[in-house]
């Protein structure tokens, strides 16, 4: 009798504990599921569960921030991919989550090695076919070629977000709820799944951008010269990691990178409107920073290291210390210590690492 009473005394809290644990687990699952239920249907198994979650989370932000319902479907032997995309889009439209009819559907057919991004009526003006073909060919498929499907989709999503921000800032979106349907807008491209890196430059991708910038690829006598040379190289879509203007550590890092033509275009385009301040030299004159006014939030600073009397671009520290938020504004990762911090002594940073002007 006594033993029974004791066991009851233990059993009750244990049961409550188990119930609480089960409830917590269920809550986690619900929160995860709520992030993006059904946004990513990887039927071909091209992504890991973690990658799927990351993608779904990012696309859920797209829905929250821009009311764009972006779904991803991968599969095998899907038939005629354009027709498949239209039919699947119609099915999605019935359960569409965008109040303004903004929908995107990415279809990857692993067997046919094709990718298609289908665009709803409401987004045709913001994402015309040419833009869709551009991000597929110049941004997404270079990652696919290295078997990095999720990274390719995410990289393309970044360009989609940038364009959506511009559309929202300028004329705004057009869109009605009925327009979630699709009339066949978008583009289809060879996915290049697992095809490996593109051949060395000059490639067909950079052929339209003039001469390979071999002459402009050396490190400059001033940080400004080096930066100008880097923009010239990017404009020529020269993805050679061994250019003389990089520091040795940067060259080692870039050799393992996928640098897409669209990324290079984006560097040139996004810095065109930035107004660089005078270079800020470090205490020993071996380091330099070119930064931009705080108001120019998308213009991240550049770091340079002086080697043999020439200024070399140090992208490793930029890669380690600088992050970009959802609004495309740069900020520091405050957990990272870097030797270029001296150049920001007159600024303060909020808890997320976003710069603020120091009050006098």
């Amino acid at each position: 009798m006594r033993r029974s009473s004791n066991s009851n005394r233990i059993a009750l809290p244990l049961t409550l504990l188990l119930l609480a644990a089960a409830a917590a687990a269920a809550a986690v699952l619900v929160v995860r599921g709520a992030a993006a239920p059904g946004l990513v249907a990887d039927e071909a198994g091209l992504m890991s569960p973690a990658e799927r979650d990351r993608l779904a989370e990012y696309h859920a932000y797209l829905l929250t921030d821009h009311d764009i319902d972006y779904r991803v479907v991968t599969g095998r032997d899907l038939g005629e991919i354009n027709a498949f995309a239209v039919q699947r889009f119609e099915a999605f439209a019935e359960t569409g989550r965008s109040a303004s009819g903004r929908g995107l559907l990415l279809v990857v057919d692993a067997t046919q090695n094709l990718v298609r991004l289908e665009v709803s009526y409401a987004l045709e003006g913001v994402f015309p076919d040419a833009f869709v073909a551009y991000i597929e060919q110049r941004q997404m498929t270079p990652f696919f070629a290295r078997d990095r499907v999720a990274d390719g989709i995410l990289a393309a999503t970044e360009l989609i977000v940038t364009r959506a921000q511009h559309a929202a800032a300028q004329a705004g979106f057009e869109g009605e709820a009925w327009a979630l349907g699709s009339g066949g807008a978008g583009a289809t491209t060879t996915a290049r799944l697992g095809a490996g890196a593109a051949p060395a430059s000059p490639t067909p991708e950079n052929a339209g951008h003039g001469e390979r910038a071999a002459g402009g690829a050396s490190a400059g006598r001033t940080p400004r010269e080096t930066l100008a040379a880097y923009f010239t190289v990017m404009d020529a879509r020269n993805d050679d990691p061994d250019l003389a203007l990089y520091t040795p550590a940067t060259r080692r890092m870039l050799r393992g990178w996928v640098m897409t033509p669209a990324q290079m275009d984006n560097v040139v385009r996004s810095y065109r409107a930035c107004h660089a301040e005078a270079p800020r030299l470090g205490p020993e004159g071996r380091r330099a920073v070119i930064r931009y006014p705080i108001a120019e939030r998308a213009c991240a600073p550049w770091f340079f290291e002086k080697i043999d009397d020439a200024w070399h671009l140090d992208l490793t520290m930029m890669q380690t210390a600088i992050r970009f938020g959802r609004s495309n504004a740069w900020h520091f990762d405050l957990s990272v210590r870097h030797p270029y911090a001296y150049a920001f002594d007159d600024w303060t940073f909020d808890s997320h690492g976003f710069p603020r002007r120091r009050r006098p």
Partner: protein
Amino acid sequence: MEANAEERIARMERDGRITPEQAAMLRASLGPPRTPDGEAAKRRAAGHRRWLPWSLVALVVLVVAVAFAGLGGGPETVQDVTQTLNQPGGHGEMNRTFSAVLAVALLLVVPLLLWVWLHNGLVSKEERVFEAWAQTESNFQRRADLIPALVDTVSRYLKHESDTLTAVTEARGAALEKLADLSETLIRRQKEAAEILRRGGTGVIEDETLLAQLYEAQAEVGRGMTGVVAVAEDYPELRSSDQFLELQAQIEGTENRINVARMRFNDAVRDYNATMRQLPWNLVAALGRFQRKAYFRSEEEAHNAPKLEFE
């Protein structure tokens, strides 16, 4: 017509890359949809059909209202209520009259409302066909607007190459000649397709022969554009340039839109035609002079199509 397209045509004509006749053909085949009169006539006819049933309903309601009003008699009449009071086991005079009027009203109004409902259902389905066709036509226009850009881009590149690379002038000259032939064919095909649309107006969708001709003409335009694109395929620098990538994406996108619009048009026609053949819709269709619509498909597809349209 887009200003851009006009500029391109003028430039090509000025540079001697297209003849004045070709320029005139291109100009004539571009521009806004060319069937406003036919469209308006069709809408007027649909509107005419729509007011007829409602006027009949109004007439019947009027008759019933007058009959009800007649029950009360004139204002000076003093009603002898003993005549109309119900007696045990019998019906009053007032109830009998009311029942008769109600029966007449029900006999007239209910079938008429049913007819109106059926008629409007058919009108909705026909509207869906018109909408789907308008979408198809707009995509034809979209493709037509791309022709000057395509011919201009490819011919300008070839001419530039031919002028600058003297070592390969002969080969480039042959390519230019080939392009000129392809462009001539493409422009003529586009003109023919535009003429069929102009000739048929909106009524083209009720004429199977004309629609089959239009299908073939549009298919020829598509093939013509593919031929010009194929010339560019021989030039990696042109093929991989952003400008050509953009143009190619627009062409492929337009072809896909045409396919989607054609599929949806044929679905709408299938639904409408099948409904028209069913009872009691066929009676409404005959009285309302609804016309069967043609499918937009090739003769081969028509030949292989199932005969029965009921699902």
